[in-house]
């Protein structure tokens, strides 16, 4: 294959990464933006989404598309419920004090990961794709499912944006973000908003995982990479900025796709992590956002 | 004999967005004087002294202290040169003992730790409480401890930001005696709302209003100044 089509393939793979990454990172970003919580367990919500999708695909009879559709609805709800529970039983009791909260979410990371290890086991298991369609391009064939992933992710991101910008729920969230105490004085149930936002963040990570699991397989340690990449995206995009997060996800996803095609993936990750550290040191407002930390 | 100038600010400016917190202030402190800084709330007093001690970076203008330009010098180095600042909102180390609070000031300039710390505590009447955790002191005692930390630095210039706020009358008398004792070795710049304290202690007064100097002079001159009266009486 000549260079042009090769680059196109790399870009298309990058788009798939970007799409899933944007979903997961927007979840992390929402939680930080509204709750000021740095959720280190975010990657485990992703993992739980994938692992629970495997369970659902086993339990639901019929063709793969039925099981997959069920997973697409049930898994984000399930993970969202776990997230809400974690918020109400742990984070709320810490009064969202930043450092204690991070330590607690590190604890949560281990709890979820090890629980998955005991209940699901150490093996990686595939979940069948809902359909097998191959789109034939002039130079190569491409998975129709992957294209569907990009489309689905775009739809969900639009939905999240509408929810935040146009709906009453979004207004309540923004009010809470602006000033917790004033929001409370205006009769907003801040505890419920926080639990809801944490659930939404976890649910988005889970949704991203359900979309990717037919391509990637479910494994109890699969949360590490999405966590790291989401961090990178959120920090480069500017913490709490939805627009910046999506742009950064595109940037990171596409460059990751391209770089990993031509260079060793580990080297790409080293460069990316160092870049994040340096961005935080020298430009804490992110490349596209305002100062937040 | 003309007074020796210890500190001199020229055209000192600091804006926050559209707010002209400090706007082109010229200001001199004579060595050994007690100088009070007064003005209505929001006049820029705390911002102004924060520029002098380096807690807030200067936007434009210059500061000379003891003959040297300190405009861009970091705060901790200004402290080493002899500018001490006591906080408006008490900021003692609440979880450390009273002794440790003052010892931190003494040890920095390499003083004899135990002796000088005790001496500084005796001076403000806290010697008996040396072992107590500072956060458990009464509010008045915490204010006094804050001042003791400033004194223990043995500064050339001591900047006191509303030191008598929340003190009982008897405590205010003790405070005034204390300030009179430390001049003229130490020059005192005092932000104060209590006019009795100001008129009693200060040799010179500078009035700030909307970030600018409204007037400077002796207490008598300031009292008689119509512009000052207008600003204070809401003219």
């Amino acid at each position: 294959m000549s260079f042009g089509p090769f680059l196109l393939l790399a870009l298309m793979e990058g788009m798939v990464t970007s799409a899933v990454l944007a979903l997961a990172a927007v979840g992390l970003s929402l939680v930080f933006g509204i709750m000021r919580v740095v959720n280190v367990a975010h990657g485990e919500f992703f993992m739980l989404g994938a692992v629970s999708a495997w369970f659902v695909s086993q339990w639901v009879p019929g063709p793969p598309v039925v099981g997959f559709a069920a997973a697409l609805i049930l898994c984000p709800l399930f993970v969202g419920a776990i997230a809400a529970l974690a918020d109400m039983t742990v984070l709320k009791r810490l009064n969202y004090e930043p450092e204690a909260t991070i330590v607690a979410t590190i604890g949560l990371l281990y709890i979820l990961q090890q629980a998955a290890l005991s209940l699901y086991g150490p093996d990686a298991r595939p979940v069948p794709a809902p359909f097998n369609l191959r789109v034939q391009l002039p130079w190569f064939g491409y998975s129709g499912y992957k294209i569907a992933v990009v489309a689905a992710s775009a739809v969900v991101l639009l939905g999240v944006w509408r929810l935040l910008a146009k709906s009453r729920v979004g207004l309540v969230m923004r009010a809470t973000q602006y000033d917790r105490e004033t929001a409370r004085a205006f009769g907003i149930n801040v505890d419920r908003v926080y639990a809801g936002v944490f659930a939404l963040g976890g649910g988005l990570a889970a949704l991203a995982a359900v979309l990717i699991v037919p391509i990637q397989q479910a494994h109890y340690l699969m949360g590490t990479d999405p966590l790291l990449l989401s961090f990178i995206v959120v920090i480069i995009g500017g913490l709490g900025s939805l627009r910046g997060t999506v742009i950064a996800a595109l940037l990171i996803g596409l460059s990751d796709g391209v770089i990993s095609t031509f260079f060793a993936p580990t080297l790409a990750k080293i460069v990316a992590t160092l870049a994040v550290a340096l961005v935080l040191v020298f430009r804490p407002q992110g490349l596209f956002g305002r100062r937040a930390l | 004999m003309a007074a020796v100038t210890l500190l001199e600010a020229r055209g000192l400016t600091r804006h926050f967005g559209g707010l002209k917190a400090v706007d082109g202030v010229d200001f001199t402190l004579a060595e050994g004087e007690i100088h009070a800084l007064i003005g209505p709330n929001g006049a820029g007093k705390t911002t102004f002294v924060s520029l002098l001690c380096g807690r807030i970076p200067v936007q434009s203008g210059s500061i000379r202290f003891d003959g040297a330009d300190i405009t861009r010098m970091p705060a901790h180095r200004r402290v080493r040169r002899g500018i001490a600042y006591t906080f408006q909102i008490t900021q003692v180390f609440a979880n450390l003992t009273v002794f440790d609070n003052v010892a931190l000031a003494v040890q920095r300039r390499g003083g004899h730790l135990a002796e000088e710390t005790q001496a500084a505590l005796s001076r403000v009447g806290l010697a008996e409480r040396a072992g107590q955790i500072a956060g458990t002191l009464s509010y008045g005692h915490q204010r006094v401890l804050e001042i003791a930390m400033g004194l223990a630095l043995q500064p050339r210039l001591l900047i006191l930001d509303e030191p008598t706020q929340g003190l009982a009358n008897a405590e205010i008398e003790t405070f005034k005696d204390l300030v009179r004792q430390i001049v003229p070795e130490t020059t005192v710049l005092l932000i104060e709302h209590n006019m009795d304290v100001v008129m009693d202690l200060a040799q010179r007064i500078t009035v700030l209003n909307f970030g600018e100097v409204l007037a400077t002079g002796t207490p008598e001159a300031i009292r008689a100044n119509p512009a000052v009266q207008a600003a204070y009486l809401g003219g």
Partner: protein
Amino acid sequence: MSAGARIWALHLAALALLAAGGVLLPAYHLTNFAKVMVLATYAMGYNIAFGYTGLLSLGHALFFGAGLYGAGMLVQHAGAAAGPAAIAGLLAGGAMAGVVGLLALRTQGVAFMIVTLMFAQAGYLTILYNTAWTRGDEGIVIAREARVLLGFDLSADLPRYFAAFALFAAGLVLKLWLVRSPSGRVMIALRENEERSRMLGYDPYARKLAALVISGLYAGAAGAAYGLLFGYVGASLASTQYSILPLLWVLLGGAGTVLGPFVGALLMFYLIDYSSAVTTASLLVVGVALVLLVLFAPKGILGTLRERWLKWLP
């Protein structure tokens, strides 16, 4: 007895107990205790940064790893003896902490946590990437012949125990002296109120950097000792988990207490050891312990003791 004498008596007694342990403990626990003492040295260093100076780092595995690989690669590739390798490991830990500190200390709080986490992750990935030098995931096994210090065979139970003890004792005495010194008082002042410390004339950046470098020296020494005493230098020992563990040990034992890191490391080591006999998911106890500690006992064991009864405990 004066306060100072009482404090030294307590800590020297603890050391005497550990020394006696070298003679009294059965072989299995001898190895475990040697490991705990090395890890506790690492945790003491972590405590200097976190417990005393208030620097919550999530990247200390980088400094531990620098010591581990600094010593290990020198032995493996340059045929260095254990002594120089250990010193190289110590210095590598301190130097790495210095470099990271120069950058990371420009940030504070949550940003500092993430920056240190990212630097450590980059370090870990670098180890995985340079397989020719580090043997990547597999790690380096240090041959028995190379693990000889002052004529003692460090792979044998008893010399290993006392080598670990010597390291721990030196670290403990140094730390006790440091935190009770005027410099230690400044570190605590920075933790309590940085702005007030600055207005007493202390340079927060320089002081925090110094504390981080000391912390890195401890981590480097512990890393080097781990490699030389147990003969294995692996990437997993430089992973994020090894940044979290010292935090956990210190939180459990009591942040800002001299003996806390040892107490925390000892309890956690045996807790994980016993639970791994029952389940493969033994790290569950790490997660549960972290959550329970921040929720119900943020001061840890010795911190709570100090608050309630032993006010003099350093």
